[in-house]
């Protein structure tokens, strides 16, 4: 695993400083440290124009913590960027120089356009926007970056002054704000958005900590899972929220469930920006996800050292990269998972006729092949049972609730006893689905057996089907006793379904 480097990215924004450290893997990465401090550098810059001594001291302290984390996690590649607050501060050069001298960290001030690009990369990574027009907006403290993309192709990008801290300083002086202040701010937002060229998005994706906080508030108010990775917030909620927030004091905003205290005063400006956009394009809600700029920066940094992601290669497949991500959360063995997936594919292609499976059924098998072992995170014994539990209770982007339960069931049967009456969850499926689960599991069992040693020795399989028997030849240039033995031990389900004797050699 150590052949892939550990990468740290630092995002110095106007509202917060964030650090993300990731272990890069073959076609994905795993976050090993995620650190955030709400440190509002922008408060000082947008009111004074420079970073004063007191703020600078605090800033260095934060950098010191981050530097320690980088060292503790043995990150070898460090990329730090600063956005609006550092762009605008008159003395940012000196600050950057001091950081360089003391900690050896190079901070690069990036332009609004670059910021927009990173954000767009993150959206590509998280959403399937190949076939639609998307407007992406990252609302930061000092600025908002807007990207327009058509059918997944970047079309144009804008950096605007619609940062929520900046708006608050310029317009909202009273607590609660005066009616006139609200109108002035609204006017400014609408004028700024008026500069964007004609475009009709199908979807709006918003990022940035404050929008995320709004989404979390919405999810909490609906008793939904606030930790879910991607969220959708309807416009009606934002409208109601604006109506509430504009009338109350910041201290009372803090009491609303889900509000991050240090953001309480900038939620209203953020709501108004996103609402204006939804109103402009008559769209009834926006999507959001965590870690916009960070994710993009990380992907870009990994790209620069030659690692590409599934969504960037030709067979870009969003579902797939999310499965890998889930696998990583539970520390799966990526190589084994991918090997089982490939062998499953090869077996599926050659057995689908006999088993009367449709091409699209492979998606379920693929997901199960990738996730079948994640239960080992909880414990080795009965790990198939744990895999079932974890899959059932996780977000699987791109699969319906029913499909997710089927994937969980297939994974359950990748080892151990065959489906029977004692498996309640299995009995709850209709007969047809039970059949499908059984068939796909019978393939998964053999594929898993063929990589028993987890060393990807078996590269290919050749299946020949005769009247009474099925012969599977495992092709490998290595010794594969263990694999053959294990696969034969797990052929029982396939034999039972096909009523043919199966031999693996």
């Amino acid at each position, binding site marked *: 695993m150590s052949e892939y480097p550990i990468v740290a990215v630092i995002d110095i924004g106007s509202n917060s400083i964030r650090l993300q450290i990731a272990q890069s893997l073959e076609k994905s990465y795993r976050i090993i440290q995620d650190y955030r401090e709400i440190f509002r550098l922008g408060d000082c810059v947008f009111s004074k124009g420079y970073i004063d001594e007191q703020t600078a001291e605090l800033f260095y302290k934060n950098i010191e913590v981050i530097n320690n984390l980088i060292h503790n996690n043995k990150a070898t590649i460090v990329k730090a960027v600063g956005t609006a607050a550092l762009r605008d501060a008159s003395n940012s050069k000196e600050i950057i120089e001091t950081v360089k001298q003391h900690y050896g960290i190079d901070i690069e001030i990036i332009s609004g356009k670059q910021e927009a690009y990173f954000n767009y990369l993150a959206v590509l990574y998280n959403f399937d926007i190949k076939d639609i027009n998307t407007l992406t907006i990252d609302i930061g403290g000092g600025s908002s970056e807007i990207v327009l993309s058509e059918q997944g192709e970047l079309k144009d990008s804008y950096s605007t002054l619609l940062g929520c801290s900046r708006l608050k300083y310029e317009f909202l002086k009273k607590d609660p704000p005066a009616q006139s202040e609200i109108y002035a701010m609204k006017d400014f937002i609408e004028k700024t958005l008026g500069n964007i060229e004609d475009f009709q998005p199908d979807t709006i994706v918003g990022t940035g900590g404050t929008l995320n906080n709004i989404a979390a508030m919405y999810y909490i108010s609906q008793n*939904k*899972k*606030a*930790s*879910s990775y991607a969220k959708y917030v309807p416009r009606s909620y934002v409208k109601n929220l604006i109506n509430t927030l504009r009338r109350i004091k910041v201290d009372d905003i803090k*009491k609303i469930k889900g509000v991050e205290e240090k953001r309480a005063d900038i939620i209203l400006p953020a709501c108004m920006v996103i609402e204006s956009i939804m109103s402009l394009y008559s769209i009834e809600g926006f999507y959001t996800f965590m870690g916009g700029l960070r994710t993009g920066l990380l992907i870009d940094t990994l790209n620069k050292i030659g690692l590409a992601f599934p969504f960037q290669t030709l067979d870009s497949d969003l579902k797939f990269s999310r499965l890998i991500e889930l696998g990583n959360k539970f*520390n799966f*063995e990526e190589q084994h998972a991918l090997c089982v997936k490939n062998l499953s594919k090869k077996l599926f292609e050659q057995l689908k006729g006999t088993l009367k499976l449709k091409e699209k059924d492979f998606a379920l098998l693929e997901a199960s092949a990738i996730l079948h072992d994640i239960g*080992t*995170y*909880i*414990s*080795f*014994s009965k790990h198939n049972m*744990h895999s079932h*539990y*974890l899959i059932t*209770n*996780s*977000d699987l982007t791109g699969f319906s609730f029913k499909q997710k339960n089927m994937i969980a069931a297939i994974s359950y049967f990748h080892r151990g006893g065959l489906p029977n009456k004692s498996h309640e969850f299995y009995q709850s499926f209709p007969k047809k689905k039970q059949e499908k689960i059984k068939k796909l599991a019978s393939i998964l069992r053999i594929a898993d057996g063929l990589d*028993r*040693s*987890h*060393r990807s020795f078996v590269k290919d399989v050749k299946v020949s089907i005769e009247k009474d028997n099925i012969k599977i030849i495992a092709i490998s240039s290595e*010794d594969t*006793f*263990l694999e053959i*033995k294990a696969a034969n031990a797990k052929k029982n389900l396939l034999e039972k379904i096909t009523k043919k004797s199966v031999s693996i050699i």
Partner: protein
Amino acid sequence: MKNGIFGIINVGSSAIRMQISEFKNSKERILESIVTPIALGLDTFEKGYISLEKAKETAQILSKYAQKLDEYNIWGSYKAICTSAIRDAQNKYFFINYINTKTQLDIEIIEESQEMYIKYLGVKNDIRNFDKFAQEGLLIAYLSSGSLSISIKEGEVDTFDSVFKAGSLRQYLLFKDIDKAIRYKAYEEQLGKILSTIKQNCSTLSSIKHVIGCGSSINLLIKVIKPKTNKITIKALNSLYNTIKSIDPQSISSQYNLSPNESNIIVPILYTFSALLKMLNLDGFLFSNSSFPQQLVNFYSKKFKEKSVNKKILNQVIAYSKKYNNDLKHAKKVLYFADKLYSELKSIHSMTQKEKMILDCACVLHDVGYYIGINNHHQHSYYIAKSINIPGIDKEIIDYVAASVLFHRNKAKIESEDELLSAPIEKILVLKKIIALLKIADSLDASHMQIIEDIDINVSENEVKITASALKIPFLEELTFKNKSVDFLETFGITPKLYIKLKYE
């Protein structure tokens, strides 16, 4: 330790053993030690069940052992246990019942984690400087006929514990139809898989400085390697392994004067230890040849005394919870409050030390479910707690902890759990007490922000008064306290009152 005679019977995979010891003023004198080879593992590991023939044979052997109990008149002070050969047999309950009707002996199946714990205590008491080794990073490998257990320690905490079904006899049986000239390659592959699992799940491998080996395999190693001290080097292992790995067992048997069974299992034993050492880059391992029956005698006669067991268990649980990104600041605060509540309210709750330990563990684990998903996190916490398999913590305690964790939220009610309704009333009462205290402690840090720094508890005749000193007004805590103190009222018949004292007022 009481004076008197104590007997132990262990039904193992390759033999049944008995040891009878007399204790006088804490000194042990072994009166008798009997070994009768019978390969029960052959049946279980190959067929999955124990044949009636073997059961009959076992009964004959055990009836002789039972006569010994008559002879020493110790039917009141013996313990008969069995390990993986019985534990993994499908017909284990029939077997135990059969033995019981034929011999009157009561055989107990000990849990894997309990077995590991007893062996751990045995090794700890046998190896000098054990604590120092553990402090410096230690791997203990218990290799018997049925299983290979690996335990990795850092200080007092286990960072990895797992039992692999890869005992020497099991390995041999798995590959016995492979040509003996190349059979060793299969062993190598099989172990490769185990090592890769360890590597994947244990991040502290590089800091391991010592290995201790034990289990029934050690005696065989001593017999063939004849080490002068209690250390076996990788050099000795490798040189013997390379000499005999392709030789047929009969020649090994005559050359080294081994029984047929011993000559079958020596090759996997040599390789297992050699591969472990190679993975850790160490030149040898210390061994403990204290026999399992001896360890059992010491354990059940309570000669082994672990100091501050409860504290160790708690530390272990804390370490375990880290894997699930537990909010330790919150957990420790809740633990602290629970501790205060426990000691100040003793006159009301009359809970035992053991119940306090359950409370402590529940404080640590109540929120781990967030890692799986925020929705119904109490259920996920329950699931995780229930799957704990830590040597030294028995199943009953885990069940209590899991149930307490499940009910830490108002969402879950004991009354609505069918399983618990049928539980004895004493058990429910214990649970209710624990939950009442846990919920109060948890509510006092409801925001997870440690706003309440400390509490004072005053108990008068009809009032329980909790005075909390806080940095600022703990809105969420007050609200949650109100909601969660209902359990306290329902259990102890009194409503606790919360008073807030602001620190800088």
